[in-house]
């Protein structure tokens, strides 16, 4: 079967200043609702009643959608990080510090040629 040509929309089709539809308005209200359930640090500073156009709506929608994803990713990361047994660890660190203070010796200089010989790869610089 022959390749079917699909005409592209003209450039004039793009109009971010078009007044937003009732659908976009409801999407914004849903996102506002969802945003209200996020921790404070993820919430946007938008006052949604000032949003009039599709372009403005899109900016708000992006901010909140990205915030929702960020909040969930952070929460997931926090869940995966094993919780420390704080009291015991603090006590252990304190003991270790006392020990280090009593046994501290001057550091030896590292031999650069030795490193080369062992073929150790350079670490990438931290940005």
């Amino acid at each position: 079967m022959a390749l079917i040509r699909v005409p592209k929309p003209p450039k004039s089709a793009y109009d971010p200043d078009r007044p937003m539809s009732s659908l976009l308005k409801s999407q914004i209200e849903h996102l506002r609702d969802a945003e209200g359930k996020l921790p404070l640090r993820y919430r946007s500073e938008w006052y949604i009643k000032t949003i009039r156009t599709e372009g403005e709506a899109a900016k708000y929608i992006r901010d909140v959608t990205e915030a929702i994803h960020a909040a969930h990713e952070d929460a997931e990361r926090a869940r995966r990080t094993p919780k420390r047994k704080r009291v015991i660890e603090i006590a252990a660190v304190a003991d270790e510090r006392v020990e280090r203070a009593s046994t501290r010796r001057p550091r030896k200089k590292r031999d650069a040629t030795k490193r080369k010989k062992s073929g150790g790869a350079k670490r990438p610089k931290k940005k």
Partner: protein
Amino acid sequence: MPAGLDKLQHIVVLMMENRSFDHMLGSLKAVNPKIDGIVDADTFNNPDAANNPVKPQPKAEFQAQLQPDPDHHFPAVDLQIYGGDKSANRQPNMQGFVKSYFNQRRDAAHSQMIMYYFPKEKLPVLTTLALEFAVFNRWFASIPGPTICNRAFAHYGTSFGRVDLNPIYPPETIKSIYSRLIGASPKRTAKVYYYDTTSSTMEVANLLQNQPELFGTYSQFLKDCDKGNLPSYSFVEPNYSDHETDSGEEVANDQHPDHNMQAGEAFIASIYQAIKNNPDLWETTALLITYDEHGGIFDHVPPPDCPKDQFTADGNATGTGVPFHFDRLGVRVPSILVSPWIPKGSVVDRVFDHASIPATITKFFLGDWAPRSPRETSADIFIEPQGAAVDPARNLLSLDVMRTDCPDFDV
């Protein structure tokens, strides 16, 4: 078991916005008389404000015609379906489309545009797919109302009593089709692909808020198709707004009035082509293209009754003063099932609505599942479950050998 069903591993649903069957595919009756499209003007027309008949005309334009956005909230759709009849024993007559549009601008000439449809040549993608694969003559919106509650039927098999655009917070009892799949044993995969974060999803209140891991973007969909990583079930959303991104201007492609129709055509073609370009995926995937509701635009087929849902919208919620028991479907929408295992020119006359989506996906991937809404359990399925006893009369993926004559689009 038929080879097409045996090989089927992925189902993709693309849901566009706000266009009726007659408006988009009505012209195809002239090509294939089995398609229930535009009938002659004496058989179907609509009265205008002065009671003069207005006939359907092939004058629909890509943009700048349906301004303002035709009303498709519950009371307006009630007028469109019943023509203003409020009696107890009324029957749908599809006589109120022009009246309803006239109410918005009080302009008789302008109100006639609600009866315009696209000639076949103007929509080369959708009409080609309809003629090449299976087109549904009786796929209706789930509710005679707007977007959010209709889309909810595609995700949950119910709108939990809503007939409007307000947020839907589903009770724990009825799970979304995605939760069912990813929570199943053996686990299935599912994803909602929205266009980009700037367009986002219409399924905000529950799924995005509580399960953002279910979501991907359109560009990820293209990559997943290319790499063969498509989940068992994918639901694709179009771009709902004209907006700027880091890579340039994006034109809305959802086909919601008054967005550009050609952008939507290109989007549909790109979804189809992404699947087709991966031969392994093409062989093992079925794509359903549908529209959430009719957007206030005319159609000539009266929506049928259906079994009641377990929820009721009261008279205040419907805006008509009369409660709605979810016992009637919304206006007919274009729906097409694509697979190389479907015979060319298939036309399906059975009744479907968006509750058929979770009903089909559940039956195909999980078998039985409870609890589900009464509307979902009574909805017909469009893909038969895999198994020895497949009813050949119902199976649309019926070819013994995969087709090699399927169309390609230059996207």
